[in-house]
């Protein structure tokens, strides 16, 4: 299952850092997202872009997770050598992530 089936997301820049907000499509998916979409997994997924570190914050009010990806933009808007200098496309890329198989699908039955 890809992340986009149970979440939507948006990314943007803060200097040389980017953030990705991941929002559960249904409140009942929030706990599952908290369990499966971890700092370690997001850091692994984006390892080719060399983030210095990844930190996760929670927004239970809108059933969302916010990931800060530090120093992932290769210089940021002012001097990145990449076309996506502001990390606009990171969110869509994360939504394509295939969540590892070891999860309990019954946790995903919508009320």
């Amino acid at each position: 299952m890809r992340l986009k089936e149970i979440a939507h997301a948006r990314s943007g820049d803060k200097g040389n850092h980017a953030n990705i907000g991941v929002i559960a499509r249904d409140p009942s998916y929030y706990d599952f997202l908290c369990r499966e979409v971890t700092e370690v997994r997001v850091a692994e997924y984006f390892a080719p872009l060399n983030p210095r570190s990844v930190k996760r914050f929670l927004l239970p009010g809108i059933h969302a997770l916010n990931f800060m990806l530090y120093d992932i933009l290769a210089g940021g808007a002012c001097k990145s050598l990449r076309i996506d200098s502001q990390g606009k496309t990171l969110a869509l890329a994360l939504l394509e992530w295939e969540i590892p198989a070891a999860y309990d699908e019954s946790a995903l039955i919508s009320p």
Partner: protein
Amino acid sequence: MKTIRIGNGAGFWGDHPDAPLRLAEQGDLNFLTLEYLAELTMSILAQQKSHDENAGYVTDFPEVVYRLAPWLSGPSPLKIVTNAGGMNPLRCAYTVGKLLASSGLGDISIAAVSGDDIFPSWNSLLADGETFPHLDTGESIANIQHLVVSANVYLGAAGIASALDLGADIVVTGRIADASLTVGPAMHAFDWSWSDWNRLAAATVAGHLIECGAQMTGGMFSDWNETLSLGDVGYPIAELSDDGSVVVTKPAASGGAVTVATVSEQLVYEIGDPEHYLTPDVDVDFSHVRLEQIGDDRVAVHDARGNPAPPTLKTSISYQDGYLGSGTIVITGPDAINKAQACAAAMQQKLNAAGVFPQRWNVEYLGAGDVLPGIVPRAVDPPEIVLRMTIHDKTRAVVDRSLRELVPLVTSGPPGVTGYVGGRAKARRVLSYWPSLIARDRVSPTVEVRTATEWCDGEDL
């Protein structure tokens, strides 16, 4: 209960030129905000001002005001609040004043809010022991302080609120927290205390949601589809009420959508720790904010919580950091990727032979999966790709020389190289970004309110 409607018609400098006018026409607004300043826009404006002391503001803004003139008078005139002043709010106010006065609108009152620019006192701040440690690394600014070209403090809503209290119809600021463009009108319209943290938090969340224009109303939305009708996307409106309640919406006759989903995406846009969204006005906790669909394209925003404003203000410093340039060519298939890799290798070989070794360089094969290299699987054999080369070096000559490698590939490279139009790519100066903090008492905002005619007559400008 009193309610005000604040619409935002610009999310950055370069946003749609007709959006402010459409929003004024369709939005039934009390206030129109226009947010123009991305992190780096100020440093570009600083460069312009260094060449011409009358420059350094958003030059599109006077024209926008001119088009909005019909809404600026009448029984319930629209008020405009903007950070279009950039590095030069006084000159921006003067230019707007001149334009309005020459159009018979000399009585319109324009305020300039300044004091965010601390660069004029840069040396004395350093002499006083300010080290402007980097917000992320803690590093002292000592190593680059001689390269600094601009330093601006993010001001809060207080200057805007006093300008409006003094009768301003148009408020022009320099660097200001984006959300404060919305908080200022709220503090003017309502009898709220500056320590009513929860109401300040509610207005700040409202400002955060509308500050990026159509990003709240369907633009950039993950679940995009054609039915969103982005061709006539409506720009965002926040309704703020005296009791601190907030509803976000858009003009009825417009495309796009305002749903819990589109608003959620904007709530998380460019935030860090959601429990501490810091502005000069308040420390907001976003983590418990709830969104509720209360009608078509109407979403209520609940439970923003505020804590006392931080003792320091964010300072945005820019410094010279060499030169950067990029250029592109198009390479068609068959075998587009292999041919592009051969082009890159040939360019490097020729640069080495010429003794040119740029400090940083990168080649991307756009269309093959290189926007996020290594994340998206690379295309096997795309019919065509764009080869983009980007160079960063401390000297302009190295960047310009490196970029000259692209064009000769049309005749000396593999077959299928085309698309080099628009002239030779050129280096631009890099101004790097150095975020820091400064104590509040180091900064003194000033508010200058004059009629258009008075701005025009101002001899000091």
